[in-house]
């Protein structure tokens, strides 16, 4: 409990880059007087969204999978999100949503974070993955459209078109987890 009068800091702090609870989120409900319904984030005008799911070969929804959209015309335009966070910033198993995507054509890929680095907030992602999601291993891969399966070539991709003020849905990825 902090003093009302001044800052008091915790005595023990780590030197790693940590963020408390930087996981799923949901709107607090109610309004803040600005006319916006806080339960539904206002769409970012002039951009679109990409929404879909990430599942294992057995159909199990997977969370904390990093989903990244890469612009085909300029591959330095990249935005991403984690699976497990759906529309309106609510927790939804296996669902992902990337907002604020500039209109254009993209390829979408998935990659895991756990086991990828030993120095960056691994404990936090492990906890996230532990929420209704099994730990599995799979190669990084692209969304392959109608050919998407657990046996497709991870490097094959389908072009996803993002239109302003619209959500491109149905980007449903299946991990090639060998199951």
């Amino acid at each position, binding site marked *: 409990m902090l003093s009302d009068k001044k800052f008091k800091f915790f005595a023990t*702090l780590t030197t790693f880059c940590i963020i*408390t609870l930087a996981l799923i*989120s949901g709107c607090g409900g109610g309004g*803040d007087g600005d006319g916006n319904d806080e339960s539904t984030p206002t769409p970012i005008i002039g*951009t679109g969204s990409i929404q879909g799911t990430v599942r294992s070969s057995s159909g199990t929804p997977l969370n904390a999978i990093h989903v*990244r959209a890469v612009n085909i015309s300029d591959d330095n335009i990249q935005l*991403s999100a984690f699976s497990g966070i759906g529309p309106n910033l609510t927790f939804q198993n296996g669902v992902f949503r990337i907002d604020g*995507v500039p209109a254009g054509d993209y390829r979408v890929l998935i990659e895991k974070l756990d086991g990828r*680095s030993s120095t960056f907030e691994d404990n936090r992602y492990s906890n996230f993955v532990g929420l209704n999601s099994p730990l599995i291993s799979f190669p990084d891969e692209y969304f392959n459209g109608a050919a998407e399966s657990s046996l497709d070539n991870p490097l094959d991709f389908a072009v996803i078109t993002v239109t302003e003020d619209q959500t491109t849905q149905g980007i449903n990825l299946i991990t090639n987890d060998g199951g």
Partner: protein
Amino acid sequence: MKRNTTILTLVFLCTCFPGFVFAYHILNSSSGGRFVFIKWKNTPIDFRVDGGTLEGKDGIVVVEDACDEWNRVPTARTLCGSLTVLPMDITAANFDTLPLLNDGIIIFDETGGILSSLGLSANTLGIGITLSNTATGEITDALIILNGSIPSSKTTDLLSTTVHEFGHVWGLAHTAIGGINTANNTPGLDPIDPSAIPTMFPFNNPIDDTFGRTLEDDDIAGISLLYPQN
């Protein structure tokens, strides 16, 4: 009326660690089984700024430039308000006497002594701290501490650090775009050019840290989702 508790949300920017990444993401907390994202209720936010120097110079310039970068986002509200320079130098001896005034405070830790007193590594470039209501997620106060003892160089840029820490103060977490698979030293699919790594990437850019001065699409998407321009 049930008393609301506050939590201290700590975010750090460290240096000298291998890179790793993560999408625009918003700080959040859990209350009664519900998740709320952490953000300011009213914007813009005013700041009190350390009256001392930063790297031996007037630190307000860096703060102003960092504020301008966030305020230039056309799809987000204006976030950075007035900057009031305090009439004293904030040091390890007096920094914890600053009153909470529902605003932000920016401290120039010229010697690294304040960060050290908090138990942080001498390699910490800066930190951003927010106080928020756990029930509503409303940020009520914020603190940025910038380490003036690490000279700005191509790989440790003070302005990039400041822009990054402001991102945390607004409620953004670290991005995951820009890292590599350090276990195998492989970049993964579609590695991004270092010049395009989002500012909210948690580590300094080993190629040129000044790249972090400019917000990228991922940063802009995150802040626009949190504070959309009507």
